[in-house]
């Protein structure tokens, strides 16, 4: 058997794949956080809870409406996105002009409520969710076995990240968005409905989290607490990448997923903490993050 630094190459590649999968979710979530932060200037603490909600909606659709993975992939982000817009319109809007810390506290409270309610009705053990028929099985690449579903998740999230980057950086809507991030008052004066832009952006960011949730359902089971610990890692990812750029959050998300996967191979004890250690080192060297502008 071929080995790299005394580790069988199969194990190395399979952990690399796990890392890529985790990285896909980090990237999708930190991307949503970055967009929302840009426009609303708040850190959306309930992002993890809404990611969970996406998975939960997919499970409920299957259970009660007999709608499978593919419809869920469309419906769950839509439902959660609308729910997010409702949150923005009824609550977050009222915090404008206040210290952004209040936004953090409010969304933290919302996360507790959403997760608490989900836990009361669904317990903590989680429900299994099957991989869709078309994506079962896998292929042998010679050096490792690649399950089709995992390849699909990585592919979709790369495409989604690319698409979001394209929309934000190359389209008119994205130009409005970036302009409103820089100076909302001036953009409003040009006749663009900034409050509506904010609502839509929040909805989109949240829908992205819900989509990640649906994709995660077959891998991690549907569990009310699946987003709770993930969100803290994603925060660390955001700190490492810096809040300035969308590209930064995508690259850091994938990179840290892979690094975490590799740590599992070479030094398993540190696999839970490696992201936080990297965060501490980055803070010492570049306090604004790798891609961030100075705070």
């Amino acid at each position: 058997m071929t080995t790299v630094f005394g580790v069988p190459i199969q194990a190395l590649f399979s952990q690399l794949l796990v890392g890529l999968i985790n990285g896909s979710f980090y990237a999708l979530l930190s991307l949503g956080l970055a967009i929302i932060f840009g426009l609303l200037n708040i850190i959306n603490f309930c992002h993890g809870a809404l990611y969970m909600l996406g998975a939960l909606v997919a499970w409920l659709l299957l259970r009660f409406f007999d709608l499978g993975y593919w419809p869920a992939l469309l419906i769950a982000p839509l439902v959660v996105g609308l729910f997010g817009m409702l949150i923005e319109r009824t609550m977050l809007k009222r915090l404008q002009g206040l210290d952004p810390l209040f936004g953090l506290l409010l969304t933290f409270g919302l996360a507790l409520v959403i997760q608490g309610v989900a836990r009361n009705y669904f317990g903590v053990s989680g429900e299994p969710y099957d991989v869709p028929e078309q994506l079962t099985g896998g292929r042998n690449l010679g050096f490792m076995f690649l399950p089709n579903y995992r390849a699909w998740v990585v592919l979709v999230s790369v495409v989604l990240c690319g698409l979001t980057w394209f929309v934000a950086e190359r389209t008119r809507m994205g130009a409005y968005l970036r302009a409103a991030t820089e100076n909302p008052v001036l953009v409003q004066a040009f006749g663009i409905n900034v409050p509506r832009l904010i609502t839509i952006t929040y909805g989109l960011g949240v829908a992205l989290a819900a989509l990640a949730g649906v994709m995660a359902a077959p891998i991690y089971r549907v569990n009310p607490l699946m987003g709770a610990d993930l969100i803290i890692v994603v925060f660390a990812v955001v700190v490492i990448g810096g809040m300035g750029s969308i590209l930064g959050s995508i690259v850091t998300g994938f990179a840290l997923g892979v690094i975490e996967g590799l740590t599992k191979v070479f030094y398993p004890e540190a696999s839970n903490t490696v992201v936080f250690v990297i965060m501490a080192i980055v803070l010492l060297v570049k306090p604004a993050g790798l891609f961030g502008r100075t705070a």
Partner: protein
Amino acid sequence: MTTHRVEAPAGVQGGVSRRDDVRSLRIPILAMVLLAVVAPFVIYPVFLMKMLCFALFACAFNLLIGYVGLLSFGHALFFGAAGYLAGHAAKVWGLPFELAVLTGTATAALLGLVVGGLAIRSQGIYFSMITLALAQMFFFYCLRAQFTGGEDGIQAIPRGKLLGLVSLDNNLTMYFVVLAIFLFGFFFILRVIHSPFGQVMKAVRENEPRAVSLGYKADHYKLITFVLSAGLSGLAGGTKSIVFQLASLTDVHWGTSGEVILMVLLGGLGTVFGPIVGAVVIICVESYLAGLGGWVTVVQGALFVVCVLAFRRGIIGELSRVLHRPL
């Protein structure tokens, strides 16, 4: 570089001199001490001790958020770490009560120096996220480490004897020791916020660039306050683990960090009595709802939402606005 201001407590500004400020607190302080002395004869002392430990924890937390405007989302780290160290010192090293608690406090202060040194390099929301991430790292460390007992925690920690003389196994004796520790922490914080140092702290909160331009090293003030806050949180955590003879992962979990934020927010950010009232209310609500299991989290979350949307001054903040005096 912009600093965002946490809403200033009502009534603290104005033309009142510092001396009058402290003097006007005399009556409420006296009432609080009297209440605390009488309470154990009416209410179960162990329940009261839990309140006192969390009240001290909340006061320590308030020192940071209320007076320097830094929202730490990782204060469970100091509370829990001190709990583990104090428990370990009492159980394995066989140290007496006071030395065990001191060990925990010193550890928390030291960790505060490390975490604070890293976190104060960034501002506002970043600061919160960094403290949260570092606390989560510490949580995973505690989960894996040998001496913390992993999922089991450190159990059956002996309470021992105070100064080698008075046995603390009696709940009433223990209560008065905890009350003394709490009052020490409370008066220490009161002294700090009314000292010249405290004035600079508030100046940094209100307008950091201006404080810097006046020649104050804002980062030094932030770091010292962070270490003080961490150390006092450790004092609370260490005491708690010995009183309840248990140090567990719950105390280092982010849930505990959230809980202490809620206590201070509900009671009133930047008020002297707010954190205490907040801690008492939250502990009561929790024990009242304990039978309902998961709903405790939902109620906590809902309280957060209500406080942020409609009640940002908190209980004591509103009260002090109505009474036109700082509380």
